[in-house]
């Protein structure tokens, strides 16, 4: 059972209380984007075996969106932060690097 702490209301929520929202930090393709860029934005997904950033909504709680940094090979949770963030917070990135030296970082 996955338990994530909602950064907005501070509750350690069980996954039945949360709604998954897919890969985080996608850069939206703009109006001038080519078909290839738009395809990449819509469909191509990072599907890493290891560190992954993912959007979640505290659906049965405060209802707000947040981002969770997780490991897909162990279900370990590195941390969560509000979804209105362009990139993961620096201290979280440092924490992940300490635990997972092989992690290549977000592109």
């Amino acid at each position: 059972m996955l338990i994530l702490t909602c950064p907005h209301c501070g509750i350690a929520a069980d996954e039945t209380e949360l709604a998954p929202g897919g890969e985080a930090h996608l850069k939206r393709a703009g109006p001038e984007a080519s078909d290839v860029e738009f395809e990449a934005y819509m469909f191509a997904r990072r599907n890493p075996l290891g560190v992954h950033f993912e959007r979640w909504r505290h659906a049965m709680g405060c209802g707000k969106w947040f981002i969770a940094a997780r490991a897909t090979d162990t279900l370990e949770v590195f941390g969560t932060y509000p979804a209105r963030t362009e990139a993961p917070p620096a201290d979280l990135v440092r924490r992940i690097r300490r635990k997972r030296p092989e992690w290549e970082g977000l592109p």
Partner: protein
Amino acid sequence: MRRYSAWAILREGLRLHRGWPRVWENPETRAAYDVVIVGAGGHGLATAYYLGKNHGITDVAVLEKGWLGGGNTGRNTTIIRSNYLQDPSAAIYEKARSLYETMSRDLNMNVMFSPRGVMMLAQTEHEKRGYLRIAEANALQGVSTEFISPRRVRELVPMINIHGPRYPVLGALWQPRGGTARHDAVAWAYARACSGMGMHVIQQCEVTGIESRGGRVSAVNTSRGTIRCNRLALVVAGHSGRLAEMAGFRLPIESVALQALVSEPVKPMLDVVVMANTVHGYISQSDKGELVIGGGADGFNNYTQRGSFHHIEETVRALCETFPAIGRLRMMRQWGGIVDMTGDRSPILSKTPLAGCYVNCGWGTGGFKAIPGSGWAMAELVANDAPGPLAAPFSLSRFREGRFIDESVAAGVAH
């Protein structure tokens, strides 16, 4: 490869069964092959088999990280059906279903195909309309299905609770020629046939990198050394994304866990496959008497081959409501498999940005039923460097072109 027959059993019986050869060889890798297939599950082995049988290509190695058929081929609920909404899906799944009918004879090994009938319950008005539409679509596609009344459902499955308080049974989509097969036997039979044609099926050989030269695939790096190849087929289900990364491209795929469980064995009580997609549960009874139960997939990426407990809870709760008689059965085993989900819930059989490299993936939660059809179409693609009519609609470019084969609405979760 010695043929299996009644005569062979009699002869070996008289010789105390000391004359049986290995079912498949366990060869050392060669330095180079014409075709290398990554993944010795059902789809990979079927691809190899039809490369040899239909196209005469036998300089083939099938590499497997773990053991043969130990991934999703050995983890599914063995359901075979072809009642899909979209034409391309119906074509490839019906091809697969028809090949299952003759598979034991073709491969000279009993895969225990049991066309016992597959019933998909309609438990809401919306679902009923959906199934009526699929029945009409199937009639046009030449797939034999019909929409049956609750009374007929009751005749076929006497233990079903038609008047469930939350989800009454309003009818069902019935495919009498669907059924189940023994999943391990399917992998073993293909492996034996491939080995018999002189192909190499190599277990415990993990691919760690893919080499290319001038935009064309040239070799794979493995835990048993580098193997050169002219053509490379990636047929690895849940790990397709990782292999694609090694080959230098991305796939529209996310890997999630899907679970199944089996009950203690009981006397025969259910002789068809019943799927209840609104409540996310499907159930059949194995020849050993166990009830084989599957449920919904997780909603988040995961490679751990464990699923979330609440999915089991939901599945079992729904099935207990639909089949009150199973309420006191104990469950014996539970397991998970990593399934590769695409955006439109349809597979990808395609050329890739790397020349000579082909992918067969994205079967998501419903790959077992497709094994022979998928192998047939994939072999055609690899042999001709161009897809045949079965594979063509499932190209990688359909996502760019907006040519989706949308089965996510048609098939619901149980796929």
